[in-house]
């Protein structure tokens, strides 16, 4: 079965199966693929099944519909086509068999071969298009530590990939104390989440002495000497790298 994959900012937003009936794309909520962005017209484009093929038609939209790098009025979709509507990209995925039949002259689709989603031309096109004021951007989460006792710091966002906690001037979180090591512990942001590691300080996580390192969960309490704080994650509007 053919599918459409809606993407924004190189991130997948949603996937739609493409059946025999028509699919419409636009800002109005009645559309099958509803894109709430000012660069998209109310009823922007539609896709109709024609035999084994799918035909895309631009519905006289303000900013136009592009296939890969070309502005189109009507276009027969091939496997791998990037349909560009405003700032969004919709990837057309034909079924394996169709992909081969659609392009008899082109190279055979090899599913084992790595290929790149075509976004280079898209960027150039977007630069030419007028800036939309409304951008719904995917937001990420950022770790925060909130001091409970022993230090008058309030809350600190873990903005660094690696946060050092200790007495040294180079620490992101500087703590004083008679037996506080230069670096008592570090908190690193990893693909799986935040991890705290002891670097020679006596650290307790939820009352247990930390032997090496442990993944942090929301509302874990951490003690470093006399200082006690809590870890949690909150939504951030900043784009995560």
């Amino acid at each position, binding site marked *: 079965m053919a599918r459409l*994959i809606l*993407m924004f900012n*190189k*991130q*997948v937003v*949603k*996937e739609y199966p493409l059946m025999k009936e028509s699919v419409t794309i636009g800002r109005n909520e009645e559309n099958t693929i509803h894109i709430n962005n000012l660069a998209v017209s109310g009823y922007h484009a539609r896709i109709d099944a024609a035999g084994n093929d799918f035909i895309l038609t631009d519905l006289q939209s303000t900013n136009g519909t592009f296939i890969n790098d070309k502005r189109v009025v009507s276009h027969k979709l091939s496997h791998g086509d990037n349909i560009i509507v405003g700032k969004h990209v919709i*990837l057309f*995925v034909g079924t*394996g068999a169709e992909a081969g039949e659609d392009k008899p002259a082109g190279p055979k689709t090899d*599913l*084992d*071969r*790595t*290929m*790149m*989603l*075509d*976004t*280079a031309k898209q*960027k150039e096109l977007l630069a030419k298009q007028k800036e939309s004021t409304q951008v719904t951007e995917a937001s990420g989460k950022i770790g925060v530590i909130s001091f409970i006792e022993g230090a008058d710091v309030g809350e600190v966002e873990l*903005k*660094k*990939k*690696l946060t050092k906690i200790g007495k040294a001037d180079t620490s992101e979180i500087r703590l004083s*104390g*008679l*037996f506080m*090591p230069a670096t008592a512990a*570090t908190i*690193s*942001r*990893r*693909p*799986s989440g935040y*991890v705290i*590691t002891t*670097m*020679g300080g*006596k650290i307790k996580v939820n009352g247990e002495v930390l032997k*090496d390192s442990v993944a942090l969960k929301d509302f874990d309490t951490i003690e470093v*000497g*006399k200082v006690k704080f809590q870890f949690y994650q909150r939504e951030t509007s900043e784009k995560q*790298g």
Partner: protein
Amino acid sequence: MEIKSSGITDVGLKREGNEDSYSIEDSLGLYIVADGMGGHLAGEIASKISVEMINKVFRKWIDKDAGDKEIFGQPDSSLSRKGNFILGGIRLANRVIYELALEKEEYHGMGTTVVVLLVTPSLVIAANVGDSRIYMVRDGEIERLSRDHSIVAEQVEMGMMTKEEAENSPLRHVLTRNLGSSEEVDPEIFEIEPANNDRFILCSDGLTDLVTDTELLNMSENEPDPGALCSNLIDIVLKRGAHDNATIISVDLTDIHKPKNGIFKNLGFFIEDMIISVKRNIKKIIH
């Protein structure tokens, strides 16, 4: 800190050429694997450029202790200085490949993934673009220090697809980011603290398509020598059909000096604990 490293690349059984490139620089602690894509020789050229360019500029910036203004692109404040050298190197390699692909027709559409590992006694930096990976094996566990930039990986992260569906999806090799396809690139970079007996494995998807994370961990745990591990892994890949080029680097760290807690320090911790509990009790009495 002692480093023992080894690397290997194999064309596999189905491909005519090897589009992977890699480099090992123990003196810098810098390790790179790149998996090129694009017709004719373009993929090979893209991966080679990325490896050479990142090595070259990283060494240059280290040698002159480059400031924020001397590196390529806007520095990222969430990263260390060396992290920014790697970020700048990847961005520069991307720009070079991108310009070359625009300029010459035969290079049109070329691109590459890249994974970069830097190890120093105080910091380990892992960076990636695309679906090549960096694994860390520590205390009997395996952890990815890279994030795949592919449509299926993103769908799995968003909970729209299971890992099993992703492995069988026809889209499993469609990347959302690589070097060469756009003017700017946004690499994934992680910084962590090293520990004794850490092992890092860098690889292209020629390995990870055929060997699971758990298998990788088991094989790593049973083979202390990084060179033997690399060749054992290639043997498995070849046995399972080797439909793609495969490249593997293994980097082992030992003799990292972490401050040890002596008897006086432990006594100090004990006294501190007592003081804290006395203070807390006084507070309770007052309130």
